[in-house]
């Protein structure tokens, strides 16, 4: 897939709550094809401490409005600066980067489960929208620390049934995603997951025990994002592979995780 480097205009920058923002970007040209699971490298201008670009997943593409959405958790100077962007300002992106989630080969395997935790829900919205448009039947299982950390629920509901867990039990079932009762009630043909590392490990272990194919989206530290520096590697059954080009989506069969 051809990659691009260009400036985008901020159309909206919504502070979902103190720790998250939803950045909607647009440009004059039609947004080229981007696949679910791919990411962009965002240049952060005006921050002394932010030298490298920041990798952020494609959260959603609104084709009608020609908008790219980025869902961002504020963890450090880079992301805090992105949260300050004003409507009309520009931001430079490299895109689209990385591989993508794979779509099950046969439509008979249409019951797919998308498990996200925290800001890891970001790529699952675009994935869900694409799966639905191709005739699959995605179910979302989203985990968060508390009710306010559940992000964009109404958006997910447009594409499938949504189940949630919170650690305090104030929304949905109490506990972690892997404790949710839906996993015992229904059989799924494929699991996709993105979130904090311990959560992805637990999901991968569950999928492996249940014999369900599973893909995870990794968030290794990156410098270039385009396969040039070899900084972002994951140790796999095929040796060290670059998460920015041969990932971020990796089948659990390939990983050397202790699960």
């Amino acid at each position, binding site marked *: 897939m*051809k*990659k*691009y*480097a260009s400036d985008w205009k901020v159309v909206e920058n919504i502070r979902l709550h103190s720790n998250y923002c939803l950045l909607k970007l647009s440009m004059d040209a039609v947004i080229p094809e981007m696949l679910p699971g791919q990411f962009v490298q965002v*240049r952060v201008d005006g921050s*002394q*401490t*932010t*030298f*490298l*670009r920041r990798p952020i997943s494609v959260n959603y593409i609104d084709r009608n409005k020609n908008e790219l959405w980025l869902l961002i958790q504020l963890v450090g100077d880079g992301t805090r600066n992105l949260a300050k962007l004003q409507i009309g300002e520009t931001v430079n992106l*490299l895109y689209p980067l990385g591989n993508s989630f794979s779509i099950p080969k046969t439509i008979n395997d249409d019951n797919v489960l998308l498990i996200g935790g925290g800001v890891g829900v970001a790529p699952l919205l675009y994935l869900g929208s694409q799966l639905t448009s191709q005739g699959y039947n995605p179910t979302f299982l989203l985990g968060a620390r508390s009710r306010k950390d559940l992000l964009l629920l109404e958006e997910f509901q447009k594409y499938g049934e949504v189940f949630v867990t919170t650690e305090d039990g104030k929304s949905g079932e109490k506990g972690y995603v892997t404790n949710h009762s839906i996993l015992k009630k229904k059989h799924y043909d494929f699991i996709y997951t993105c979130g904090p590392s311990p959560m992805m490990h637990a999901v991968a272990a569950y999928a492996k025990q249940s014999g369900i194919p599973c893909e995870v989206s990794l968030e*290794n*530290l990156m*410098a*270039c*994002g*385009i*396969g*040039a*520096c*070899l*900084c*972002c*590697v*994951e*140790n796999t059954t095929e*040796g*060290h592979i670059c998460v920015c080009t041969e990932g971020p989506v990796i089948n659990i069969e390939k990983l050397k995780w202790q699960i």
Partner: protein
Amino acid sequence: MANLKVSIGNLSLKNPVMTASGTFGYGTEFLDFMDLSCIGGVFMKGTTATHREGNFYPRMAETPSGMLNAVGLQNKGVDYFISHIYPEVRKYDTNMIVNVSGSTIEEYINCSEKINELEDIPAIELNISCPNVKQGGMAFGTNCQSASQVVKAVRNVYRKTLIVKLSPNVTDITEIARTVEAEGADAVSLINTLVGMAIDAEKRRPVLSTVTGGLSGPCVKPIALRMVYQTHKSVRIPVIGMGGISNVTDAIEFILAGSTAIQIGTYNFIDPAISVKVVDGINEYLDRHGFNSVEEIIGGLEK
């Protein structure tokens, strides 16, 4: 339009701007962002006699205006390079240069001999300075005796342009530069990364799996500039300068300090088309100051 051509040994460059080893892959990764034929050359990622897996993750840490890396020369080895990568990169319309690394003199010889046979590789850059590999790199470039041994051995088997890349982790870089010049190097390139360290205070652990790593980016520029200046004054062979170059002004400063050509490294990650922009900027600078060629300003600091 000034004349941007320069030469390094028998190597002629259409302009003095090249990209640094380990930061530009094999050039292929950048084809969507720029036209490789617009720059003087590409230094491809470090190649060793045999396959290397490199160091464990985490291999990088961001630092103020720079980064530390500890990639550890991950590459598939020279034979793989020849069978799988060379057929593609030989087509590119620029100087494609192999950065040769190793942990023993035999490895350097083995790798250089094989690259010598490749018609479309006009030069090698001998990395005697990579700080990442436990037994290798570091030792050769940080003392005159071992630097001299490895350059002499490679000079025996390598017939084309031999560039030796120097380590900045020494007390006097000019001493090493003079040593490798005496052994027949056609040029020196500098600087490689400076050994540094990052600590995660919350976890009370080093950030890198290897504890220490190589620092690069704009933060190293003043040191690099000083070393290029000193080296240019103490050798007769051309100096290729690098270290933190991120715009045309930086590039001009390195040329004024005595670089015949320059390399851009880490900044390719921020702007993958930076090298082409620097070429255009050098042209504009020369025109604005009334110079006819870039050669007129090499080492051209006013007294």
